[in-house]
């Protein structure tokens, strides 16, 4: 147990170290542009922490990222790289949108229906890729990239249907019915922010479910075994193909639910895309920063959401919000090379031991 604790601590230490370094790199770029890094970071942090409203926005921004982060983290642990969370998120969002606009039902029925539709859509989108991989051995990274774009254009196509397309000139769908929204009650939202919603609690529930599946069930054990060593798992009698299906189904459903949360909580409608919204790709960073651990992913999602929201306020002082991308990129880069630091630390401690002898 103490060993596990130590490993976690060192991972956390590396993450914190990476974040600090990335802010230094960001400061360097701001300085090149002739913007005072201190002023910019002061604005960034005051936009995040100054009022309950701002902090609530950070949580709202972070919620969908927790889902895509969980989706990617789950796939990482089970030996598949789900670069397709982007597409699963989009089809999930669209499924929830169609149900949310068309099905006349009271809130108590409609909201779960929207979530189920989103989960099923995301799940199917993931299963197609798993099927192509198992049946024909098609490289999953390639097919996921294809299905991300197919989802993108499919969503744009469906958004054009007159049944759900906006009545006005807007290049978007109609708003979903109020009964489908998952916003907090009016009085709470006055205290927090206008888009505060129950999504964060759904995210918490998802974190718990994923944690239990991975750590406490036979299914999770098998999935992780395939993730560690496919051939050993197969030799040990685990059906690898079935595991790929299961992993992609669960991962896809998580990303799909993320799409529903974003729609029912924040957007209320789907606009015609002009570029990929990147929730899925950002989920990759979230999973990496959270060390593919469900609890880590939760905090990493909020962290990313906070930077996204804070970054959007940087324009007010003439600083570019892209500095956030540079910061996130640097964090991920340092996490990628982090084992170097760990390695040197082990060597040092070994040397110390030898010295003691």
């Amino acid at each position, binding site marked *: 147990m103490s060993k596990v604790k130590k490993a976690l601590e060192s991972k956390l230490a590396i993450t914190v170290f990476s974040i600090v370094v990335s802010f230094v790199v960001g400061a360097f770029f701001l300085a090149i542009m002739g913007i005072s890094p201190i002023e910019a970071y002061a604005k960034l942090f005051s936009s995040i922490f100054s009022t309950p409203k701002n902090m609530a926005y950070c949580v709202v921004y972070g919620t969908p990222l927790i889902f895509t982060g969980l989706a990617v983290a789950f796939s990482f642990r089970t030996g598949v790289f789900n670069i397709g969370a982007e597409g699963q998120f989009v089809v999930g969002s669209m499924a929830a949108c169609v149900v949310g606009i068309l099905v006349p039902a009271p809130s108590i029925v409609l909201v779960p229906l929207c979530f189920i539709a989103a989960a099923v859509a995301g799940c199917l989108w993931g299963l197609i890729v798993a099927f192509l991989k198992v049946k024909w051995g098609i490289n999953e990274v390639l097919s996921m990239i294809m299905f991300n774009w197919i989802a993108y254009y499919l969503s744009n196509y469906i958004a054009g249907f007159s049944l759900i397309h906006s009545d006005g000139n807007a290049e978007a769908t109609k708003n979903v019915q109020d009964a489908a929204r998952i916003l907090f009650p009016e009085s709470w939202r006055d205290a927090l922010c206008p888009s505060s919603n129950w999504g964060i609690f759904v995210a918490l529930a998802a974190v718990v479910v994923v944690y239990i599946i991975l750590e406490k069930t036979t299914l999770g054990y098998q999935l992780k075994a395939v993730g560690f060593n496919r051939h050993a798992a197969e030799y040990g009698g685990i059906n690898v193909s079935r595991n790929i299906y299961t992993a992609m189904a669960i991962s896809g459903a998580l990303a799909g639910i993320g799409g529903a949360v974003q729609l029912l909580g924040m957007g209320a409608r789907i606009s015609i895309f002009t570029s990929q919204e990147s929730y899925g790709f950002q989920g990759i960073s979230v999973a990496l920063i959270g060390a593919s651990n469900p609890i880590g992913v939760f905090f990493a999602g909020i962290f990313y959401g906070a930077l996204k929201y804070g970054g959007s306020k940087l324009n007010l002082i003439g600083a*570019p919000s892209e500095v956030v991308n540079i910061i996130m990129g640097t964090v*991920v880069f340092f996490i990628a090379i982090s084992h170097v630091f760990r390695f040197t630390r082990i060597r040092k401690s070994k040397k110390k031991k030898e010295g003691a002898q």
Partner: protein
Amino acid sequence: MDAFINDLGIILYATLLYTPPLLFAAMGSCFSELSGIVNIGIEGMMTIGAFTSATVAYYTGNPWIGFLAGGLAGLAFGALHALATVNLGADQTISGTAINFLAPGVAILMAKALFNSSDTIPLDPTAKIPLLFSDVFTSGTVWSNFFKNVFNTYASTYLVFIVLIVVWFVFYKTRYGLRLRACGEHPATCATLGISVTRTRFSAVCISGFLSGLGGACVTMATMNQFRPTSIVGQGFIAIAAVIFGKFRPQGAMIACLLFGMCSGLKVVVGTSNAAVSAQLISMIPYVVTVIVLILFVGKSRVPAANGKPYIQAK
């Protein structure tokens, strides 16, 4: 018949306009993947190349200096990826993801610093990559229009096919190419034969960045005339798909890139002439076609054996 030839000419024109960025990047991807390093940072390297080339061409007024600068900017990020993955043994997918955040971030940030906008200032026609054979092919009859459409095109289009032949030659006819492919298959064996796996892979990933940067430059200096944050979106990933589709061979990747390029061309032609077919569905064609072709003809694409596995050379 005349209308058909005319349409065909326009489709070929569009195909040859949209193919070069993909093909440059795909050749870059080949270099990296064949040496055993997964590079999903191609997208970011294209973006930084697109921005740098448009900016340098704007300030110098010389398209070729701009074009080269785009390649060098891609090379810089290639070197960063190489440092992380080859020398430090980092997870290659993670490092590539980082590049995809960093490079566009830097590009847009610098655009805002220099131009006060996320777009660069449009290039004069003289600062763009020149159109070749404008005097040779003139419009007139149906056939002369056809030839004008097909052959009176940007120099980058001609260049990319020349580079393709060079790349093929390097891979399959030179010692460096053999070593590079061997490093991707069995690095430990290479090391025992006295080949520096580290140096070979490092150079391959740098070349990968350079070619991707050139691909980005084709977008901003030929297809378009300025850099916008949406200039590249997804083309790097499509190039990677083309390489897997082409079974990690440059000539296979070329066919895939032409296919993707033609679909983009079809989108332009059909999108403008026929409103009955949804532009969204037409846009979907290249991706659906890829999947179907993979199922029907290609099957398993054989990935280089050591692809994605870090190799730290013993001292």
